[in-house]
């Protein structure tokens, strides 16, 4: 059933229960996100898609459309808030684009460009997190993880449905972990998917490396904004 909602002052018709972030992109309003994948259950972890609904700031991927919704996306304070959230992610880990294999196809980087980030307003933390290369096919660069939990929820052992990735501990001690036994059973297709859905360069396909020249990489061919507005996910 459809209902009328207000999106940045414009009245639009939207399906009740549909995630707000999808409705916005269907109406040409791009809301950046790093954990949400269209068609998949929402995770609500990154908060980068924050908008204001009836006066309250909330992550638009977690909000289903309901009657009488008044949504603000493009106000200076919200634009700056989303940018701050992205800047925060850049200082929380070590996001060294010049030395990262994911550069050019990294969602965090692409969203950084879309939010107009030039520098982070927060002090860079340079955390020390050990890398994990025990798995046969996957290299885990822990200091790039933004804890979106995409891999945790959407990459599972094909036989048992068990989780392959998990998050250990909490807060500043949190770290992404990999079940090496299960990871070694992953098919090449699954490995590729795990690396692809990782919005940063944390899950790296050991066989890939720097495989595409600058100028021909994913988000250089088409920006993340264009992709999302066309209803495409990163799969």
């Amino acid at each position, binding site marked *: 059933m459809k209902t009328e909602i207000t999106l940045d002052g414009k009245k639009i018709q939207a399906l009740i229960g549909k995630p707000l972030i999808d409705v916005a992109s269907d109406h040409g309003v791009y809301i950046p996100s790093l954990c949400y994948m269209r068609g998949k259950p929402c995770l609500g972890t990154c908060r980068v898609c924050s908008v204001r609904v009836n006066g309250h700031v909330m992550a638009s991927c977690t909000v289903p459309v309901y009657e009488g919704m008044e949504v603000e996306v493009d106000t200076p304070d919200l634009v700056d808030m989303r940018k701050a959230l992205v800047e925060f992610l850049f200082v929380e880990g070590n996001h060294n684009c010049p030395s990262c294999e994911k550069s050019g196809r990294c969602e965090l*980087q692409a969203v950084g460009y879309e939010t107009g980030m*030039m*520098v982070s307003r927060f002090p860079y933390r340079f955390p020390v997190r050990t890398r994990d290369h025990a798995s046969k096919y996957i290299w885990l660069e822990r200091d790039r993880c933004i804890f979106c939990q995409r891999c945790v929820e959407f990459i599972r052992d094909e036989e048992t449905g068990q989780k392959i990735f998990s998050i250990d501990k909490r807060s500043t001690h949190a770290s992404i972990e990999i079940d090496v036994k299960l990871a070694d059973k992953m098919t090449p297709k699954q490995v590729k998917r795990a690396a692809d859905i990782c919005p940063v360069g944390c899950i790296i396909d050991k066989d890939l490396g720097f495989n595409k020249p600058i100028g021909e990489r994913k988000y250089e061919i088409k920006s993340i904004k264009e992709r999302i507005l066309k209803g495409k996910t990163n799969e």
Partner: protein
Amino acid sequence: MSNVLKDEIASHELPATPMDPAIMAKREEKIQVAMIGLCGCWGCTLSFLDMDAGLLSLLDKINISRASITDIKRIPKRCAIGFVEGGVANDENIETLEHFRENCDILISVGACAVWGGVPAMRNDVELEACFKEAYIDSPTAVPGIKPVIPFHEDLPLITSKVYPCHEVVKMDYFLPGCPPEGEAIFKVLDDLVNGREIDLPTSINRYD
């Protein structure tokens, strides 16, 4: 530097042949622009040169004072615009950066190193002692049979324990990320400033790598 010996002369203090007064007078009226590299690879300076013909179109409005093109160490005269490449990794970098801050109206961080530390900042998750050990004591390229030495002399800059972005040392006015940023991006920033516009770098030429 504070520990420079008395009989040493820095290159900017060397006597120089005076320029033609007419040319000098014209230069005085122009917008003074300077650029310096701190702890970086000078790749951003190459991007500065990559402005190519774009730079020519600005030359009747700007004068490039301290830059790789002129090869003087200090700013001879107050500048309107200063570009800084590289992060802060030693005490000489701090001194140079402060000199630029004192002598430039607008100071811009250019490139990943200036903006957040960049590749040199990869040593930030290791103690300085371990860095020196790896570089000089346990170095795989150490000459066999020769006692390894960590260089230390009053003429050598002291290495800071961490690499810092420029804005953690002095106030920076604008930031231009990239490793290096395209010449086109530097030109856009310079052109905006010279023509009195607010800096507006389009998403399409903003790069972090």
